[in-house]
C-alpha cells in the first residue's frame, strides 16, 4: 500500500521523465524474470530468518502455531545476562576476535609490503601461489594439520625442545590458556596470503615515479616503504579495517569447534557455539535466538560506530 502511493507521487512529480511503473515492468519483463526469482530467494533464505527473531521474545514451542506462542517479553535476555556462562563465552568471543583483528590485519599488510620488495619474479610468484594454498583447504583439514603439528611428538614440540626453549614437550591442544593463540595462529597461517591480495593490488596502483624520485632523494628501502607504500595503500587499509570491525563478533565457530576439545572448553566456547549448544542441541530455541540476536545487534552497532569514526577521522587526516 505504501509503496504504491510513493510510486504514484513520484509519477506525478516527474511525469515527463518516467513512464508508469507497470508499463516499465512489461517493457523490461526479461530483466524482471531474471531478477525477481532471486529476490524471492533472498527474501526466503536471508530475510525470513529475521522474522524468527520474534522467538527471542517468546517461550517458543515448536508444536504451536505463531498465534498460540506464549510471549515472555525480555525474559530470555534477562536470563542470558544473568548466566555466568554467557560472560565467559562473550569474553572468549571478544578475546579471539580482537586478537584476530590485530594480528590478522597486520600480517597481510606486512606480507604484501615485503613481497612487493622482492625483485626476483620467480621467487615472488612461487611465494605468492604457495601463500594462497591454505585458504583453499577446509578448516577440517587445517584443524587436523594443526593438531598433529602441535601434538606431543609433533614438529613444533620437537623444534622447541631442540632449541632448548622448552625442557619437555607440551600438550598444546590440552591447555586452555594456549587456545586463543592457537586459533589466532591458525587463522594467520590460513588467510595471510589470501588477504594480502588486495594490498598487493593496491601497491601495484602506486605511481612508480614516486619511488624513483625518493631514490634520487636518497631514501632507503625502509623510507620508501614507510613514506610511499604505506600512504599509497592507506585508504585500502582503512576500508578493510572498518569491514573487519563490522564482523568483529561474527568470527564464526568452525575453528573453535574443530580445534577445541572438552579440556579447553572454558576458552573455546564462543557465542555461536553457545547458541548451537543451547538453541539447537537441547532445543531451547528461544534462548538460542536471544544469543544470536545479541550477536547481530552488537555487530551492527560496531559497524556503524566504526564507519562514523572513520568518516570523522578520515576527514581530519586525509582531506
Amino acid at each position: 500500500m505504501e509503496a504504491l502511493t510513493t510510486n504514484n507521487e513520484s509519477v506525478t512529480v516527474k511525469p515527463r521523465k518516467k513512464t508508469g511503473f507497470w508499463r516499465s515492468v512489461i517493457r523490461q519483463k526479461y530483466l524482471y524474470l531474471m531478477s525477481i526469482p532471486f529476490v524471492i530467494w533472498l527474501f526466503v533464505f536471508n530475510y525470513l530468518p529475521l522474522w524468527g527473531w520474534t522467538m527471542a521474545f517468546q517461550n517458543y514451542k515448536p508444536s504451536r502455531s505463531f498465534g498460540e506462542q506464549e510471549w515472555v517479553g525480555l525474559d530470555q535476555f534477562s536470563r542470558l545476562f544473568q548466566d555466568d556462562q554467557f560472560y565467559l563465552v562473550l569474553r572468549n568471543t571478544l578475546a579471539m576476535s580482537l586478537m584476530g583483528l590485530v594480528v590478522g590485519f597486520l600480517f597481510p599488510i606486512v606480507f604484501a609490503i615485503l613481497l612487493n620488495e622482492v625483485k626476483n619474479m620467480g621467487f615472488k610468484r612461487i611465494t605468492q601461489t604457495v601463500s594462497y594454498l591454505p585458504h583453499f583447504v577446509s578448516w577440517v583439514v587445517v584443524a587436523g594439520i594443526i593438531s598433529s603439528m602441535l601434538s606431543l611428538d609433533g614438529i613444533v614440540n620437537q623444534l622447541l625442545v631442540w632449541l632448548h626453549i622448552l625442557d619437555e614437550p607440551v600438550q598444546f591442544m590440552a591447555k586452555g590458556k594456549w587456545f586463543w593463540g592457537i586459533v589466532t595462529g591458525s587463522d594467520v597461517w590460513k588467510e595471510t596470503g589470501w588477504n594480502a591480495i588486495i594490498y598487493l593490488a593496491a601497491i601495484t596502483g602506486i605511481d612508480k615515479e614516486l619511488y624513483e624520485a625518493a631514490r634520487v632523494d636518497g631514501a632507503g628501502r625502509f623510507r620508501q616503504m614507510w613514506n610511499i607504500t604505506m600512504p599509497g595503500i592507506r585508504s585500502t587499509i582503512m576500508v578493510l579495517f572498518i569491514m573487519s570491525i563490522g564482523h568483529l563478533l561474527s568470527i564464526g565457530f568452525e575453528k573453535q569447534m574443530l580445534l577445541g576439545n572438552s579440556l579447553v572448553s572454558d576458552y573455546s566456547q564462543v557465542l555461536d557455539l553457545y547458541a548451537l549448544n543451547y538453541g539447537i542441541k537441547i532445543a531451547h530455541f528461544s534462548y538460542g535466538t536471544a544469543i544470536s540476536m545479541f550477536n547481530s545487534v552488537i555487530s551492527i552497532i560496531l559497524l556503524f560506530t566504526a564507519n562514523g569514526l572513520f568518516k570523522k577521522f578520515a576527514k581530519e587526516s586525509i582531506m
Partner: protein
Amino acid sequence: MAGKAFNLTRSERVFNIVNYTLLGLVLVVTLYPFLNVLAISLNDSTDTVRGGIYIWPRQFTLDNYNTIFGYTSLIQGFKISVYRTLIGTVLGLISSSMLAYTLSRPDFRSRKFISTFLALTMYFSGGMVPVYILMRDLHLIGTFGIYVLPGIVSAFNVFVIRSFIDGLPYALQESAKLDGANDFQVYYRVILPLCKPVLATIALFLAVGQWNSWFDTYLYNGNKPDLTTLQYELMKILDSTQQGSAMANANDLANQMAQVSPESIKMAITIVVTVPILVVYPFLQRYFVGGMTLGAVKA
C-alpha cells in the same frame, strides 16, 4: 636488472637478505605441513607410529590409499561431495550472473531497490537458531537440497560479476538490441561469453565453498549416512582421535581409535580430500586475483 646488482648499497643488501629469509620462512611454514601429511600418508602405517617422518616416507607404500578406497562411507561421501559441488556451482553461477546482469543495466527500473535488498544481506544474518527453524519448516532437513538451495544467491559474488560487466562496453549490448535481441538474449549471447574470466573466479569460490563445507552436514544431515559429505566423514575420523589423545587417562579409547584409523590412514584421507583443490587453484590464480580486487573495490 643484473647490472643493478653491483650498485646495491650495503643496507640494501642486508635488507634483501632479511627479506628473502623472512619470506622463505613463510614458504617453509606454509608448505611443510602439507608435505608432512603427504609423507605420512605414503608411509607404512605401523612404521608411522615410531614417529620421525618429516617430508619423506620411510617405508613407502600405497596400502593406506588402498584401505581407504575400501571404506564405503568414504566412497558415498565422495559422491555426495562431488554432486553438491557440481550442482551448487552451476546453480550459483546461473543465479549470480543473471542477477548481476540485471543490476548492471542502468535503465533497469528496480535496480536500486534490488541492489540495496541484496547488499543488506551482507551485514546481518538471522542467526543459527532462526535459520535452523526455517530449514525445518521448509522440510529441507535430511535432504540433499539443504546443501545447494540456501546459498544460491550470494551478494558478494553478484557484486563482483556486476563490476566486471560494468567494465564491458555498453555499445555491445546496444548493437545486439538493434539486431533484435531481447534482454535475455543479450545476457545469454553477449554478456555470458564475455564474462568467462570472472565466472571462472566465482566458480572457483563456489566450488571450494561447497567442497569444503561440513557444518551443514553436521547440523542437518548427520544422521543420514547416505547424505553425509567427505569433509564430514573426515571430521568424524579426525575428531574422535583428537578427543582421545587429549584425554590423558583414556588410553583405552585412544588405542581403540588408533586401531580403527591409524595416523597414516587419516593423512591419506586428508590428502584425498585436499587434492582436488590443489590441482585446480594454481591454474585459476590469475582470474581470482583479478576477481578479489574487483570485489574489494566495489563491495
